[in-house]
């Protein structure tokens, strides 16, 4: 493929990933949020795939495909089961209301672009120009991790964060580190499974996944 289309493709995928992250702040339905996460995972993995194809490195392609299966397939499915088990299917009480968190997201994106300008100017490859988008995903993910009230949506926030890290890693190391990335993804999966068990326990104990109630237990 030509350099122009290659760069455009990278932009498109990263952009989709970021938009998905923003949309998770907007939607209230947990199921929809998890679907968005799947979309984002797909986009991130696809980025790795594209880079692999561009580099024509078989290992990268294979690992990217694995990552795809993991990010767009396994993890979302596990989460969906978790949500379906849960009593309340919507994110009811985010600590910051939706409009405000969307505006905050806009500012975070601006911050991401402003702060990574040095990295962008470092190398002139098409990959490095997309890094700010990945960084923005990291920030947005962190934000929703910090401000969401329900355990599943916090999990999603954590996974958004992880996807962002993965994207940045893939772009920065231009595909080579898919191994590392896959490792990360794997232990994230592990973490998800553990958390699922925990939340299931919470579920059975307190009949809800509201973290504020845990707070009450504490004091």
């Amino acid at each position, binding site marked *: 493929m030509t350099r122009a289309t290659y760069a455009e493709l990278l932009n498109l995928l990263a952009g989709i990933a970021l938009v998905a992250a923003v949309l998770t702040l907007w939607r209230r339905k947990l199921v929809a949020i998890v679907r968005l996460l799947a979309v984002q995972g797909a986009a991130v993995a696809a980025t790795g795939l594209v880079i692999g194809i561009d580099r024509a490195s078989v290992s990268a392609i294979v690992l990217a495909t694995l990552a795809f299966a993991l990010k767009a397939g396994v993890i979302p499915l596990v989460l969906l089961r978790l949500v379906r088990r849960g009593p309340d299917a919507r994110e009811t009480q985010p600590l910051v*209301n939706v409009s*405000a968190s969307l505006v905050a997201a806009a*500012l975070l994106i*601006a911050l991401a672009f*402003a702060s990574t*300008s040095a990295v962008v100017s470092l190398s002139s490859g098409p990959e490095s120009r997309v890094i700010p988008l990945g960084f923005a995903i990291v920030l947005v993910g962190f934000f929703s991790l910090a401000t969401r009230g329900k355990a599943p949506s916090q999990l999603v926030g954590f996974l958004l964060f992880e996807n962002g890290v993965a994207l940045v890693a893939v772009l920065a190391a231009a595909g080579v580190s898919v191994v590392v990335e896959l490792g990360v993804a794997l232990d994230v999966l592990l973490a998800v499974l553990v958390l699922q068990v925990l939340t299931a326990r919470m579920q059975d104990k307190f009949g809800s996944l509201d973290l504020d109630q845990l707070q009450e237990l504490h004091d």
Partner: protein
Amino acid sequence: MSFAEISLVAALATGAAAIAAALAIGEPRRRTLLTGVLTAGCGAGGLLAAMGVLATGRPVEAEFPHLLPFAGLSFRLDAFGAVFVLVAGGGASAAALYGISYTRDHLSGRSFQALVPAFVLTLLLVPAANSMSTFLMLWELMAVTSLLLVLAEQRRSPNAREAAMWYGVMTHLGFIALLLMFSLLAAHAADGSFAAIRHTSSTMAPALRSLVFLLALVGFGSKAGMVPLHAWLPRAHPEAPSHVSALMSAVMVNLGIYGLVRVGFGLLGGGPSWWWLVLLALGAVSALFGILHALASTDLKRMLAYSTTENMGLVLVGVAAAGLFTSTGHPVLAAAALGAVLLHVINHAAFKGLLFLAAGSVVRGTGERDLDQLGGLMRRMPVTGAMFTLGAVAITALPPLNGFMSEWLLLQSLIHGAQSHVVAVAVAVPVAIAVLALTTGLTAATFVKATGTGFLALPRTRAAEDAEESPRSMLLGMGVLAGACVFLAIAVGVLAGGLARAIAAVGGVTSPAPFRVHGTTVSLPWQIVGTSVVLGVAVVVGVVAISVALRVLPRGARRRRTENWGCGRTQQTARMEYTASSFAEPLVRVFDDVLHPELDIDVTHREESQYYVESISLQRGIKDAFEERVYRPVLGGVAAWGRWARQIQNGSVHRYLAYGFVALVLLLVAIR
């Protein structure tokens, strides 16, 4: 002697004559009449002088070495200052005409009548000051005269005293900042003249330059009502007599902008981009904060005052943009932004003056300032209503009136500036655009609220019901400014040359071809004129054509007046219609994170059962977040410090002697 010089001298002479007349003439009616006319003449003179300077670009200079001890007075009115003199002159003449019959009844006193022309004179002279001492003296005079004018109605409105106190304190804090700033500048220069300062300012240490800029930001920002130094503005402006409010809100605040540009660009010759990013942030916050409070407030004049904060915020954004573009090497865009700034200063003076005069005429006609108590004035005060509507359309930046032109120019320069390759700019500017756009939208809502609930619909109180139209001279005063709004929209191209000279005169911003944004199809003066004329013609012709067309319809000739459709309700009263508060409620709710509306409802039940309600009273107050969060803690801290300081001196002579002794010892140690 050039035309500009002659008319300037004439202006000063008539101004002095006005003061003399106010003091000399005994019979009140004649006093107000003559003073008003003379003051208007003084303003007109200033207007002509400014036009002369703008047309030729040749400055007017005057030196009076011995008038003031040590420093002397030195004046130099260049094209940049002339823009502000233009504004001051125009605004002053309109306000003075308006004042003739506005002040006749209860403000015809000698002192008040004499203070107005004095205030006008300071407004005309401040932009002409050419040395530190001259500038500070005139600045202080301006502050004091306006302060006294704010106090003029203290007997009638109890808030006036408190407002005056806020104003006095804050304006003097600002003055201290300016004093420090100028002393820092002058310390490095041969003497206090601006020329000398400009000459040496580039050799100052960067840190010092930044300190100077920040001090200027505080001093001039507080005058321009910049958040968080705005607290005095929504208090003082509404409390002054309306034509004085118009002068303060339309003219005096601009001088804050004048000072900031003069120091930032002229004396310091621009600076690093972080200065301007700070200014950009402050300007954007001022714009948004101001308009949100304007939206939420139902007091007509307070609303207008807050909207002044908003407009100054927009202007500050423009100044900041100009600075950013200069520091990142886009002189052309910088020129465009500065042009937008000057144009908006002129436009804002026109429509804000008009709106304040109209508000004054409402207050005079009804004795009410609260929009929730007004309504239906369009049919009782038709001229005032039409004037206010015109002003509202202009301030909402709707085509084809003048407000649109300057906001268009500002947005253009920002949108093209967003293409900068400096990331800081590329990220900051879109935020500014968003804020600007949101501000425009909220302005529309705010002034639909003001016009719609104040002048349209049914009168909500007796006061509004038996309102009567104001006398001729007041309408004339409004008419002048309304005419200015229309003229500035149609003939804005006429100003282009003058504005270009003004920008050139600032120094610090150098642009090969002012107003020409290369690499794009925007070539501003041409297009502004084109736009304004095309849109004006299109809309007006369209409206006329349609109205005529409707008449030739089979049944279009006459309308049948019918009762409002109230869903068949047997009786409808004004209590059923939306009030200003209810109009603004949805937006207030959207922005409650910023406004923190406090709602208290108390329901009194009948004694027989709690299910029967005697009465329900609902109170909604909106406090200024900055006063709550910033001012109160600071004032509290100061008070605590004062209490602590009191312990030091308890009146015992021994302790005072001890202080002296300790001081002496320390001194000896120090100089050892």
